[in-house]
């Protein structure tokens, strides 16, 4: 089971829309209710294999502003997004994400901020003509009582064409939900405990070390 993740896949909560589901449609649908109940859209039952709307929430015992500030600096994200090697900030709010791909390769994606609301939300999307189309959004809401903040992460992803695209698709299609869940859990650990839990006995046995040494 863990072998799946070792190879590593995707931005936290990558959604692979193998066909051509428009991101605009994805983003605008996301917060609407399709049914008559009050559940989040991405928890609606969907046809087998239909991953268009993957999302995940965690509750973190920290104030909204602190979490928002940490996430605002994209350079922080690779600390808990296992398959993102680095994110470099460019000019005018753009940044370049280096995502680990199969066989030691990496894919670069340039993103821009789509919208940002102080202490509430950050949304980003790949710039036009990107090799990989992607978009994501993280929302911060106060949790009830003293529980801290509810953090919800949604990401969508469309792979490049050609051989690399197919390879990446294969990788990302595997378990986008799982990756989202794990990355968010790691974010929570980092914020609440200052570190990310590992059961390794030695430094060579950590997942990061194993990834690096192949």
């Amino acid at each position, binding site marked *: *089971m*863990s072998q799946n*993740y070792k190879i590593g896949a995707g931005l936290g909560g990558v959604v692979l829309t193998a066909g051509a589901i428009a991101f605009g449609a994805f983003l605008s649908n996301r917060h609407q209710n399709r049914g008559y109940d009050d559940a989040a859209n991405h928890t609606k039952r969907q046809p087998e294999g239909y991953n268009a709307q993957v999302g995940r929430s965690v*509750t973190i*015992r920290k104030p909204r502003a602190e979490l928002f500030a940490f996430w605002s600096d994209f350079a922080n994200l690779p600390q808990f997004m296992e398959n993102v090697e680095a994110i470099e900030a460019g000019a005018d709010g753009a940044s370049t994400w280096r995502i680990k791909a199969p066989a030691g390769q990496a894919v670069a994606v340039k993103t821009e901020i789509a919208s940002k609301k102080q202490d509430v939300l950050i949304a980003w999307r790949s710039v036009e003509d990107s090799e990989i189309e992607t978009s994501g959004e993280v929302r911060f809401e106060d949790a009830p009582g003293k*529980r*801290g903040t509810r953090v919800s992460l949604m990401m969508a992803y469309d792979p490049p064409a050609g051989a690399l695209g197919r390879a990446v698709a294969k990788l990302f299609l595997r378990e986008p939900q*799982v990756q989202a*869940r*794990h*990355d968010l*859990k*790691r974010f*929570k*650990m980092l914020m*609440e*405990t*200052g*570190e*990310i*839990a*590992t*059961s*390794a*006995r*030695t*430094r060579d046995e*950590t*997942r990061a070390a194993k990834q690096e040494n192949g």
Partner: protein
Amino acid sequence: MMRALTWHGTNDVRVDTVSDPEIINPRDAIIKITSTAICGSDLHLYDGVIPGVAPGDVLGHEFMGEVVETGSASDLKKGQRVVVPFTISCGGCFHCKQQQYSACDNSNPAEKQDMSATLYGQPMAALFGYSHLTGGYSGGQAEYARVPFSDVGPIVVPDHLEDDQVLFLSDILPTGWMAAENADIQPDDTVAVWGCGPVGLFAIQSAIVMGASRVIAIDHYPNRLALAKQLGAEIIDFRETDVREALMEMSGGIGVDAVIDAVGMESHGFAIDNMFDVVKQKVGMGADRASALKQAILAVRFGGKVSIPGVYGGMTDKWPLGAMMEKGLQVRGGQTHVQKYTKPLLEKIEDGTLDTTFLISHRLPLEQAAEGYKNFKEQQNEWTKVILKPGMEN
């Protein structure tokens, strides 16, 4: 390299040479182990009835020793003598802040949380030396251990107390105490305890300290029953006596006020449903053997209290659901919130309220750990609690 007790399969544990633990995270500490015990929970691993154990895993979750190395964010100091709780808890999450330490959100690595989340709805916290469902952390039946969140878990113990006196703060003493607490004992209560292993014995002692008017202990090993009697309990040998009948008579036809199941998923006995469950467990169909608990639910009075420290992992059949509902029972269980109890119980050891050494039957060098397992399983009457000591002369 160090020596450690490792799991290789059902009834197969060995002392092997494995890599030394290292500081990985800032809050870690490395402990040089001076004493470590074998627990009834380890027998569930030895018997192969807990899923998610891998060959080579280092077992052991009851241990203490000396701090030899600390991470940059640990508040321990080299040379301190500490007892380590078997539950790994961060101290800062929603559950830890309510002292529900064994439900910590952050100790089980993210990628290990899925299995238990599927089984139980939400993931389990991490435990030392247990299944990969609970993190797969290397345990303490070894010369050294890496202890995460060392600023929250380990309790520093005074030098005038021997290892034997404080070691059980790591698990079975808090477990027995919490079992009694979960039985919500009132002054006139009669409490029945199934199982006179270490957990049952400490539950009996705790129930008496909490003021139960009467405690009745149930087992089938004369020596273990004698230990219960010595603590002040009345005893029933279930091989000789019809337990339900006896308890009804002893409680004047009311039923006992509270019951504690300190047996867990490998209940012994010849009740017909238990025989089925034994077979299913053996062929890997994973049914928990719950005959003691079923008996307890029938023996407790209407409106009574059911406390379950005994470990169960999966499902069980022929559950007395009707009795549970119709009788309006309160049921509480759970892995122990050890960190909540270490300090108050250390005080009770120091002032003599609690005796922690009466149940120790054997002390062995770590090198003889495999023998310790075999005897603790097969000679339960005489082998009541085994302490392993790294470095002790053979």
